[in-house]
């Protein structure tokens, strides 16, 4: 599995895509999308990261186990961030109105 050889063309294509992604990120940051600026920024970053993981890191050709492993990392990251944020977002709930 680790022996899959990705052709150089693919590498260059991904590289180009990453550059475009960077440009898009910067461009999007200067447009006022209110609360969606961060969403867009993170989406682009996620796409870029996926490209790196998939092609530069050969996960596209790797075993299911490796894919699972990568997914696990992001799921756990999501757990810690989202549950902690739930605290901050819901602190006002259930307390009284004087």
């Amino acid at each position, binding site marked *: *599995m*680790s*022996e899959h*050889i*990705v052709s*150089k063309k693919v*590498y*260059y294509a*991904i*590289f180009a895509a*990453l*550059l475009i992604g*960077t440009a898009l*990120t*910067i461009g999007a*940051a*200067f*447009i*006022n999308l209110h609360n969606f*600026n961060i969403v867009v*920024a*993170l989406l*682009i*970053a996620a796409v*870029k*990261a996926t490209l*790196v*993981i998939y*092609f*530069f*890191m*050969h996960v596209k050709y790797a075993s299911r*186990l*490796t894919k699972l*492993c*990568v997914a*696990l*990392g*992001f799921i*756990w*990251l999501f757990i*810690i*961030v989202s549950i*902690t*944020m739930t605290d*901050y*977002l819901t602190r006002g709930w259930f307390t009284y109105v004087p």
Partner: protein
Amino acid sequence: MSNKVKSDEHSSAHGHGGRHPRLVHHFDSMEQQNEAGNFGMWWFLLTEIMFFGGMFTAYTVYRHMYFDAFAAASGALDIRWGAFNTVVLITSSLTMALGVYHAQMGNNKKLTMFLLLTVLLGGVFLGVKYIEYSAKFTEHIFPAASNFQWPPYEKPVAGHAETQQLADPVFTGHVKIYFFLYFVLTGFHATHMIIGMGILLVLAWQSWKGKFSKEYHSYIELFGLYWHFVDIVWIFLFPLLYLVDRHL
């Protein structure tokens, strides 16, 4: 039931007489050894995600709590350096990937070259980081310094309503939180790069000495994973730190 890991075919396929010289004693086959290394590296990267994850959690919480301060503080960073470094790091990922490619082809010369190129790009990145860091000192926005000052010393903050440049002690505290996070996130990221560059130099030296071959190059691949991971962290750091609220 079938057992995918270690079957007798495996070991016999490699022949009883022919253990690869690089095969460590407790493994049965090169495949097994490589797979273990590869899998181990992925799990290591998993722990790295969680390591940075702790800081991302703190970042998310405070960005939510003190958005204005984060927006203003982020405006004090130089977006051009950030973008430049993003490109540098992406390029270094490309050179690394090409290095792996040539390792797989067994092309030692090119491998050495690309490894060195990667080190070089890493060096450029750190150089820029140095410029940026020292700017923070001269602008008095290094959070641990006693002369911390907001708005930054002799520097207008890009693109922000006057309110956000207020010299308010509480607001300044929140700005400090931003810069604290900025420094630990980029600091730990840079530490990873420095370690990575150290390893890269060793690998480059080894490949120059001809240690690697078409059959034996798993260290290069494993290290590639690490390097790309560091790149990915930056892909997220760049928008999160530099682009909080850039529009006018």
